[in-house]
């Protein structure tokens, strides 16, 4: 009689460590959309973002033995995603701006919103990868300050000020786009 795999983080991580790819797929499934989204924001290219998440999947699979706390898998996997995304972002390929204004308009209800999004998209692309990452962790992943500090290896007390300055740089770039 086949015994069903118990779907707890501990059992899934142990099964994945033992070579069970299905268990690994179950572990990462809820993380793929946020991972891909973050990579898109940091890198600016959908193709490269997919590559970054693929790279994170491979490095996480290989590094599972180093995961001490199975319950910490989501945060641990996200660090692999961050590392891979930053590595590809530093290749300095051009930021690929948001092209599909029609989709933006249909979702956002109007030309003005679509234009604001396109301006913000171009402005975001002028930021450094480090700024893009910081804003992604804070505003897209909504990470607590302590977790962002741990992800970036910076003191907790500096996260808010860094976010503040990154937002100011983004705002200045957005205002410049508006004037152009």
């Amino acid at each position, binding site marked *: 009689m086949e015994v069903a795999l118990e779907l707890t983080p501990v059992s899934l991580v142990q099964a994945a460590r033992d070579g069970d*790819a299905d268990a690994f797929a179950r572990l990462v499934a809820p993380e793929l959309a946020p991972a891909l989204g973050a990579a898109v924001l940091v890198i600016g290219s959908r193709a490269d973002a997919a590559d970054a998440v693929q790279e994170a999947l491979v490095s996480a699979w290989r590094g599972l033995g180093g995961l001490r706390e199975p319950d910490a898998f989501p945060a641990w996997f996200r660090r692999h995603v961050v590392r891979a995304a930053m590595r590809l972002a530093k290749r300095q390929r051009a930021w690929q701006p*948001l092209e599909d204004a029609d989709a933006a308009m249909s979702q956002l209800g109007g030309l003005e919103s679509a234009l604001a999004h396109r301006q913000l998209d171009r402005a975001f692309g002028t930021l450094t990868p480090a700024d893009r990452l910081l804003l992604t962790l804070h505003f897209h992943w909504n990470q607590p300050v302590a977790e962002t500090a741990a992800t970036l290896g910076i003191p907790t007390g500096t996260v808010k000020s860094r976010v503040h300055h990154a937002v100011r740089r983004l705002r200045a770039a957005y205002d410049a786009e508006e004037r152009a």
Partner: protein
Amino acid sequence: MNDNDFEKLLREWMADRTQPLPDELEKLEATAQRMQPPSRWLPTLRLTGAVVAAAAVAGMAIWVGNSLREQAGAHTPSPSSSSSAAPSIEPSTVPSDEVQFPPTADVAPAWSADAQWIAFERQENGASSIFLVRPDGTDLHRLSDGGRPTWSPDGEWIAFEFQPPGEKVAIFRIRTDGSELQRLTDGAADEGNPAWSPDGTTIAYQSERSCCVERPPAGTHGIWLMDADGANQRRLTNGDGGADVDP
């Protein structure tokens, strides 16, 4: 537009920008499902017996690991073996064709500051890898390629040396949970044997960088220092015609 409205716009744009395309997630899910076990996947060995405890306390855990793996190649563990002179071994459930016995050599053990882990270098088939193991022999797992592991005082990082194919030996560091692999030296010369300062801010290491114009251009080892993240690399000694090694 005030700051709150701008942040609201930012969040909306991020949500819009990150909508996955129809087949993107399916491709990533398929990637995860097709993962193959690494060719040198190791089981978790549970070592029992008084010999292991004594050897671990004496810092000889690596010696114990080698000898027991050699025994494991010819030993079938059984419930009644616990009273025998040799420690019993209980391999975890891993397909037998995945087990690699015996390793060539386990060397360079290093205790974490909290004594919860031992890092060591496993040399096998001409390649070196860094492994972690508990002092009682449990939770053995591979951390990275490389050798000569050394723990940061806070237990968060392991610095080590590794020679990428076609390059010089360089110093890397990796978080002990396997994330954030970082290269610290640039490979201009062979550099290795990292040693952390007690406060964790500085790494001393040996380098074959030529120290100055009048010295021989290669082969002279000196001791260098760098910040724990690889920044601010500076020479401390120049070997003075010999070799300064093992900081």
